[in-house]
């Protein structure tokens, strides 16, 4: 990891408390570091300072040079200085009065419709109006009014009258996402956020504006009027949409997932996520989906009890001459380990492959040799990308394949990062990264100051070339479970068949993912999506990602925990495999009584799911 040298410290006094912070720190951050919260709207630690809402005014009786400022100053734009004396609202009546004045002004054109606003209950304006405002407004005039809401995109609605014009959203779009398609327009009190005609806010990160809007101006169309924050229970989890490993906050009400927000994880996604992770809500305990096992009976599928279905699965596997396991690329590390153990210990087969298809014969060998078991410490990390001199992209589209990787690269540009892409054609993403396009890997001149990011499509021959170059490198798969599956050993070993060969051989298969096609022989399918049961002889519903806890390993080999939202009616894949293993280990008995001892997972009628 490229750590920067420890920064020079500056000592100042805030509300009588001496504090030392790195040079260049703003007063508002310095105050935060000793637990003093100065109210703010436009300020955001990850956005460039703007100083426009004026909420964070503090008194500075001594700027460090013996002289003070005659009027309160914005602490979000003021850099600390040695010997500086700062008085916040806690110790300066002048600062307090200034903040109260600004708050009153902010509210004169605000509708105060908190009871019907999505943000009510978690709103920085509401909260700070209580903590930093006066109890009563002296304004008895006419408020600005707008037609509401404006549809910015299919996903985003804007209620302009609630907006405090802090420009967090527009700065996010421009500075963080590189998609400057929303902007402030008009002037004075009629200033408003708008998008350009014919240029929609086309961004895979658009949902973040809902989260950083300090009022209820930007709302998500899906979530609008869907819940009140104080009725929601939050669960920390890790996103299952790609291998980026974003921390998420999943909010549910009685087990029903209502929304997902970016979680705070400075090492990975900072405070952002992408629209896939935010708006694609995985199924869970309260969603309708088939939850009863199915058995093939005379050519057609019919419902069966768990004991009967498991017994049939065991019987089919026992009968098979050859067996294989296809866990799929979306399993938690725990489930992947269970599939691996099932193949190794129960079926005794070397044929296991997490992949859905194989384009490259030698890929498995490379992954086993070069990717499997890598420790986080030896892996390239997000932080390295941000501070790198040069990053080379090989068969990897950061915005599509792992969007948060794109955000780090985009951030790195400001620190002098140069992006090179081995690509035949320019793209919008590459243009945003100001990437230099080269034709071959040789043209990319890999040296020890280079980091290579290779995507899943990258041929193993190229991967080997990269791995033997002086550059540091990382392989970034598309799917969330890939690294965990590789680490667990879900790849064909000595004498094992890969997924394509297994699907084309007459062998019995245990399949863990709906995306894996049907094979030729007896197939037991564990399904979390409730998709089509065709192509299975025994179809077993298993828990979705929200119905179990576990771990995902992202492309950095960093562990991210999967938070349980609510247990559903069906077990996790690992649990099903354990029962199946138990059956297969027992001496063969006749008929379906073999299922004895297996619980029927159907819960009693009306059983509460945990909230």
């Amino acid at each position, binding site marked *: 990891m490229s750590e920067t040298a420890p920064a020079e410290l500056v000592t100042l006094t805030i509300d009588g408390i001496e504090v030392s912070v790195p040079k260049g720190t703003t007063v508002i951050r310095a105050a935060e570091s000793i637990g003093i919260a100065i109210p703010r709207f436009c300020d955001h630690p990850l956005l460039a300072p703007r*100083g426009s809402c004026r909420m964070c005014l503090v008194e500075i009786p001594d700027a460090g040079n013996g002289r003070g400022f*005659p009027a309160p100053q914005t602490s979000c734009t003021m850099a600390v200085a040695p010997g500086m004396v700062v008085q916040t609202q806690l110790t300066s009546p002048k600062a307090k009065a200034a903040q109260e004045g600004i708050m*009153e002004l902010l509210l004169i054109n605000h509708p105060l419709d908190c009871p019907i606003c999505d943000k009510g209950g978690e709103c920085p304006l509401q909260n700070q109006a209580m903590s930093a405002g006066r109890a009563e407004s*002296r304004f008895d*005039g006419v408020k600005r009014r707008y037609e509401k809401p404006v549809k910015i995109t299919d996903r985003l609605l804007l209620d302009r009258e609630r907006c405090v014009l802090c420009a967090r959203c527009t700065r996010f779009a421009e500075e963080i996402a590189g998609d400057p398609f929303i902007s402030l*327009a008009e*002037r*004075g*009190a009629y*200033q408003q956020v708008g998008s350009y005609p014919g240029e929609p806010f086309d961004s895979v990160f658009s949902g973040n504006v809902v989260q950083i809007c300090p009022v209820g101006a930007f709302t998500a169309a899906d979530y609008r009027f869907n819940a009140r924050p104080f009725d929601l229970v939050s669960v920390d989890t890790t996103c299952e949409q790609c291998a980026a490993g974003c921390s998420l906050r999943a909010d549910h009400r009685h087990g029903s997932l209502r929304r997902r927000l970016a979680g705070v994880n400075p090492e990975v996604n900072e405070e952002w996520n992408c629209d896939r992770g935010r708006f694609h809500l995985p199924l869970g305990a309260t969603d309708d989906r088939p939850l009863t096992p199915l058995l093939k009976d005379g050519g057609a599928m019919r419902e069966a009890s768990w004991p009967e279905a498991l017994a049939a699965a065991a019987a089919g596997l026992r009968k098979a001459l050859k067996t294989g396991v296809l866990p799929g690329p979306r399993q938690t590390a725990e489930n992947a380990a269970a599939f691996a153990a099932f193949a190794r210990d129960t079926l005794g087969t070397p044929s296991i492959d997490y992949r859905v298809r194989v384009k490259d014969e030698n890929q498995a060998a490379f992954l086993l040799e070069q990717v499997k078991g890598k420790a986080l410490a030896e892996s390239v990390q997000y932080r390295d990308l941000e501070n790198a001199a040069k990053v080379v992209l090989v068969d990897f589209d950061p915005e599509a394949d792992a969007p948060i990787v794109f955000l780090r690269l985009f951030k790195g540009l400001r620190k002098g990062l140069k992006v090179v892409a081995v690509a035949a054609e320019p793209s919008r993403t590459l243009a945003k990264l100001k990437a230099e396009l080269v034709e071959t890997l040789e043209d990319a001149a890999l040296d020890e100051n280079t980091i290579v990011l290779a995507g899943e499509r990258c041929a193993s021959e190229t991967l080997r070339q990269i791995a033997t170059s002086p550059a540091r490198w990382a392989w970034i798969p598309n799917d969330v479970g890939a690294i965990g599956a590789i680490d667990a050993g879900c790849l064909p070993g000595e004498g094992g068949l890969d997924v394509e060969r297994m699907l084309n051989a007459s062998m019995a298969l245990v399949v863990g993912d709906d995306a894996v096609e049907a094979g030729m022989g007896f197939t037991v399918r564990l399904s979390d999506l409730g998709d089509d049961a065709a192509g299975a002889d025994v179809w077993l519903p298993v828990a979705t990602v929200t119905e179990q806890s576990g771990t995902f390993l992202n492309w950095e080999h960093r562990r991210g925990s999967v938070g349980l939202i609510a247990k559903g009616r069906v077990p996790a894949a690992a649990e099903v495999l354990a029962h199946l293993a138990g059956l297969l280990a027992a001496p063969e008995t006749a008929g379906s009584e073999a299922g004895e001892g297996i619980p029927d997972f159907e819960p009693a009628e009306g059983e509460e799911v945990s909230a």
Partner: protein
Amino acid sequence: MSVVPTPVLTANWGQERSWKLKKYLAGGGFKAAKKALGLSPEEVMGIVKDSGLRGRGGAGFPTGVKWSFVPQDNPNPKYLVVNADESEPGTCKDMPLLLASPHTLLEGIVISSYAIHCHTAFVYVRGEVAHVARRLQGAVAELYEAGWLGKDIQGSGFDLDIIVHSGAGAYICGEETALLDSLEGRRGQPRLRPPFPAVAGLYASPTVINNVESIATVPSILRNGAEWFQSMGTEKSKGFTIYSLSGHVANPGQYEAPLGTTFAELLELAGGIRAGHELKFFTPGGSSTPILTPADVDLPLDYEGMVGAGTMLGTKALQVFDETTSIVRTTLRWSEFYKHESCGKCTPCREGTWWLVQLLKKLEAGQGQEGDVDKLLAVCDDINGLSFCALAGGAVACVTSAVKHFRPEFELGYTTPAWEAYPYERSALFAGGAK
């Protein structure tokens, strides 16, 4: 007492087709530029510094000192940007100068650019005055043709291009950093400082921004010397300037006189208050400068004199109002201007001007309530000094100074519409308003 006008900048305004290069050259034009190109840039800067010339755009910062802030070791190009946005209510000196004698400014730009090692200069003209922009463009074209612009000016080896840029009509674009954003093609809103324009201004390069009059004064200083310039004006406010008198005066217009001239002296030049009327109040330098009253007519109109009187010299735009004028109505009109021109970036200005207008409207209509005048002042207090840029300070100054001098008239707004107390037609200058 009386003052002798000192026409320097305005000397040629009365000539037939005074804006043509031929005329300007015939009157000694570009002699100063020729002289400057024979000196070193540092010498030119030294002369302007020595003259004591201070910015005529409002703040009065010493021009030569401003130039010396440009870091010459910065590898980026250096830019000179002339602020011709002139939008402050009452201010009308730069536009007439540009119409009557654009070459005075352009010669000033050649000299000033040379002094700061600038090879591309811009003139940012307010959007509403297409005719001024056209005249300026015509003058620039004449200079290219005459070899006073372009490559190797007059064989001196000095290259300079001048670009005339029209704004889109926003007062805030006169604020220097908003101007830079606008010039770069963005929405004109003030920038966070630091960095200051001298270090990272236009296109993040070292930039000097000066008012039209400041730069237009430079040729006369080069021609006549710093001492000549210093011989006029007061101790800390050297030289001459254009005072613009408008409103209820007999002969409104531009009056060029040494700094420190009093309002009484200027009134004398302008033929006094319109016949049969008397002075009620005036602004020393546009609507953003706190108003003054008849008690202040003998104060020297220079930078220190005005600060001493609790106001500012500003743009030296003396808006004159006689006893027929409703101060409430006047203040409301100014406030409406600021509300309309507030860029919206910061809360106190954006929301405060919205509120002030509503309060003043009630007072104008005689529908104010007991306590509204105090509320007006309280709102001003919540804006003043807390905004992002200086626009809001102006928006507040006109209100607080008006209440300070004429509080009873504002309180009359609790009962009586301003149009009844001060029938508006009596204030009109042209429609039979004069007695």
